[in-house]
């Protein structure tokens, strides 16, 4: 659409201007990592970390969400939960995290529409930031994406050392940026070329590759393959991989109440816990770690492609980064690809 530039020193002014009208989520430095938080001033933002610990899915699909309110007991009443209409801006979202939403859309906006996700999706502007320096376990290129991809965001920023290239990708992005015209100048041809250079360098920085050809079909024939036992033996079932995964969307629903009032809430859950599928009768369809590890991989690389025609993984590499026993999804999928049947 339109390409603009903003000087780096102007960036803070622009963002502070955005903060005045919108609820802005941006990476904020915690002890040794960053996390998406609501920011009230540009100075709170820290762009030095590549990926925040918890992916941006937590903004549209909150870890704890109130579904509705009720009066507890046997004479119960129900009260709807109002969904806030505020405008959201997710600032400095990486392309892998932005892709999350195109993977989660069929889930939350499918046969049954999740009103919470829908409202926030409609109300949010994604301002992306190209990765100049990918991490060890980044592998978005394996899905044909790029660390400077314009595909999933409304506006894409690219750090060109001294200034940022601002690419406007969608109509919504254009409408959004129109309010802030004064901060930008038009981008020159050189700017676009430097972006290409940045992108090329970043792509070269991605050293790990997941080979995906035919994996989905092959998984269909590998349900009982020993590879699942081998990997599950290591697994300690901590569930961190699912919490930091941008596409994991499983949740638990629970009633919380005092004596007088209460609410049904939903919280993120993890398929790596045995309680997740445990029936009240005592039967558990996924009793062993093997079943659970297999289900996680199958959900992303077999069930998602079958149901929604998209691989349920964005290549952010968080599950590899945070796994304490080195269960490496790239290795597993590559092994699947190489396995002889």
């Amino acid at each position, binding site marked *: 659409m339109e390409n603009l530039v903003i000087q780096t020193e102007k960036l803070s002014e622009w963002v502070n201007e955005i903060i005045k009208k919108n609820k802005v989520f941006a990476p904020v430095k915690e002890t040794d990592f960053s996390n998406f938080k609501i920011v009230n001033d540009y100075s709170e933002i820290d762009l030095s970390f590549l990926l925040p610990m918890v992916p941006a899915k937590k903004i549209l699909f909150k870890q704890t969400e109130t579904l509705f309110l009720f009066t507890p007991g*046997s004479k119960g009443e129900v009260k709807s939960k109002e969904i806030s209409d505020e405008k959201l801006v997710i600032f400095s979202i990486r392309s892998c995290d932005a892709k999350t939403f195109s993977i989660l859309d069929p889930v939350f906006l499918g*046969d049954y529409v999740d009103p919470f996700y829908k409202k926030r999706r409609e109300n949010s502007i994604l301002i992306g930031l190209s990765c100049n320096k990918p991490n060890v376990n980044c592998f978005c290129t394996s899905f044909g994406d790029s660390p400077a991809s314009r595909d999933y965001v409304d506006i894409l920023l690219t750090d060109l050392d001294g200034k940022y290239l601002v690419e406007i990708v969608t109509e919504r992005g254009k409408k959004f940026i129109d309010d802030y015209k004064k901060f930008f100048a038009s981008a020159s041809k050189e700017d676009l070329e430097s972006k290409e250079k940045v992108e090329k360098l970043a792509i070269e920085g991605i050293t790990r590759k997941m080979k995906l050809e035919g994996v989905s079909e092959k998984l269909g024939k590998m349900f009982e393959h020993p590879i699942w036992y081998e990997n599950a033996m290591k697994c300690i079932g901590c569930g961190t991989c699912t919490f930091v995964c941008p596409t994991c969307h*499983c949740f638990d629903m629970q*009633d919380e109440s005092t004596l007088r009032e209460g609410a049904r809430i939903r919280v993120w859950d993890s398929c790596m816990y045995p309680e997740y599928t445990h029936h009240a009768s005592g039967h558990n369809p996924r009793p062993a770690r093997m079943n659970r590890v297999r289900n996680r991989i199958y959900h992303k690389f077999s069930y998602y492609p079958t149901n929604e025609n998209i691989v349920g993984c964005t290549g952010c590499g968080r599950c590899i980064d945070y796994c304490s026993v080195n269960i490496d999804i790239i290795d597993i999928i590559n092994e699947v690809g190489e396995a002889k049947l």
Partner: protein
Amino acid sequence: MTKSSDSKISIQNPYEPWLAEVEKITKEVGGARAIKTYKLVLQDEDAKKNFNFIPGQCVMISIFGKGESMFAISSSSTQKDYIEVSVMKHGKTTTALHEIEEGDIVGLRGPYGNNFDVKGWEGKNIVLIGGGIGQAPLRSVLNYILDNREKYGTLDVVYGARTSKDICFKEEFTELEKRDDVSVHLSIDVEEEGWEKYVGFVPNNLMEVKPSSENAIAITCGPPIMIEYVIQNLLKLGFNEKQIFTTLEMRMKCGIGICGRCNIGNLYVCKDGPVFSYEQLKGLQGDM
């Protein structure tokens, strides 16, 4: 409460239940694994008018403050004013359900899932094979067929429970046995004084009954191990894969295919199930 009523999906918040009054509670079985049947009437008139289901479908019932669980509807869809569910006391929500009284309010949302193709089966002979609380979804089919008796062929009901005290819907079975257009074959697992009918497991009783597979549909529901053996025996009796149906259960939370836990392979039991033909089941790769 406002709920738009044109279709099941367009309701504003799919997690928010309607209120339903418990009009009648029938004690089916006592003891530690007690079973009660609840007659529920939706309070919202619009919701009540638009609540349409087909046997085999399920509803989510909540006790506010305790939790929510999925139950098969055990009444027939020919009955429009209320729905019935039969619940065995087992976990947190069902225990809470067993403590409520007539006139109390519960939350209800649904109907969810697919259904038995009762329309498509018209003209066929029907064999229902149930065990324990597994009779609940079958009761819905049974009553539907009884209400449209002339449209179907022969009707065999095979049912078994652990002891004679554990038999669900006992009075209804007694009534049923009096009819000449239904053959009822009851069984209990272990011998008991005063029991003159079959003693043994349901799959064995089925082999005694030997229903003909010709132009027939067999529907089974019960404990997983029973389903497994019933299907084996049905195949022995000449039923093919397309003639055998069962309904499955899984731990569920949302009921609408989002929360992710009830999948068998790529299918969600809540949305794509709970009714599966043996043909589908055989092709399914997943943890059950």
